[in-house]
């Protein structure tokens, strides 16, 4: 189990902090540059990158067992499943008339 005990050095923590600061500055700067619909996409890509860096280094997932790694990944997979099903529902609501409303509309 000794291999699980190597935790990051202070240098790694400081580099992670510097990376997070640069990404914060980048997301604020890029919000004021007009890129249409891509503004939202870029903001979310930067936020996901920051979150991943925090999880991997500050939360030690990189230095933990494979079981923990799988556990964390499965948790976020279920978050994505939740988003996908909710958005699939809302996005497709206008596609088909419900049977009841169809018969009402031809009367």
């Amino acid at each position, binding site marked *: 189990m000794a291999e699980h005990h190597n935790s990051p050095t202070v240098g790694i*923590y400081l580099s992670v*902090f510097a990376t997070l600061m640069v990404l*914060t500055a980048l997301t*604020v700067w890029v919000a004021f540059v007009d890129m249409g619909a891509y503004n939202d996409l870029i903001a979310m890509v*930067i936020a996901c990158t*920051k979150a991943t860096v925090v999880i991997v280094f*500050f939360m030690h997932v990189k230095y933990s067992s494979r079981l923990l790694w799988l*556990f964390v990944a499965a948790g976020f997979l279920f978050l994505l499943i*939740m*988003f996908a099903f909710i958005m699939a529902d809302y996005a497709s609501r206008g596609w088909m008339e419900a049977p009841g409303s169809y018969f009402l509309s031809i009367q």
Partner: protein
Amino acid sequence: MADHAHDHEHHPYGLAHQFEDTAQQKESVLLGMWSFLITEVLFFGGYFATYLVYRTQYPIAFTEGSYQLDVKLGAFNTVVLILSSLTMAMAVHESHKGNKNGILRYLIATFILGGVFLCVKYVEYSAKFEHGLVPGLAWHPHGEHSPQLALFFSLYFGMTGMHALHMIIGAGLLIWLMVKTARGTYTAEYNAPVEVFGLYWHFVDIVWIFLFPLLYLLGKTHG
């Protein structure tokens, strides 16, 4: 159990009797904390899904609402919270060495930075009350606005309020950790509470990493 005294000869400090060794105990503790954090991820996920649904339905109202938020204060708080994550990571780092003064120093730094974050949040909330942008309590927005503007502010207060509640609970837990650290409870062998609280604090940081762009940075190019 005095009659099992021989069992205790090689019994490491802080090891509960149901575990084989400290490594197994640590693995179980971390897995348990992550189980809780994943329920928290899905709990906040409900807020984010609600945001996503209404944002796609009423993009104009959300952009209008975002104009009313102060990007400078939001960015300042992002920096403060990430800095507090760094000090918390350092506290965990010191706890692995069993350095009591080191842990205490970084826990105090984390507590102060958390306090700064909450003070800025208080200033922001007060401004919203003054400007009549609090749905249900003080709702009288000036000028032309979308009828769905209240939806944005309901989500703003719901999401940042729940985040702030997590920070307040975190600050309370930090006080408890500081007392225990000062008493010398945590050593190089037994420091799980510091490490587990670190995970919680970083999780709260991650929530804010998403809240900041989603609430503060919408449609800045059209202003």
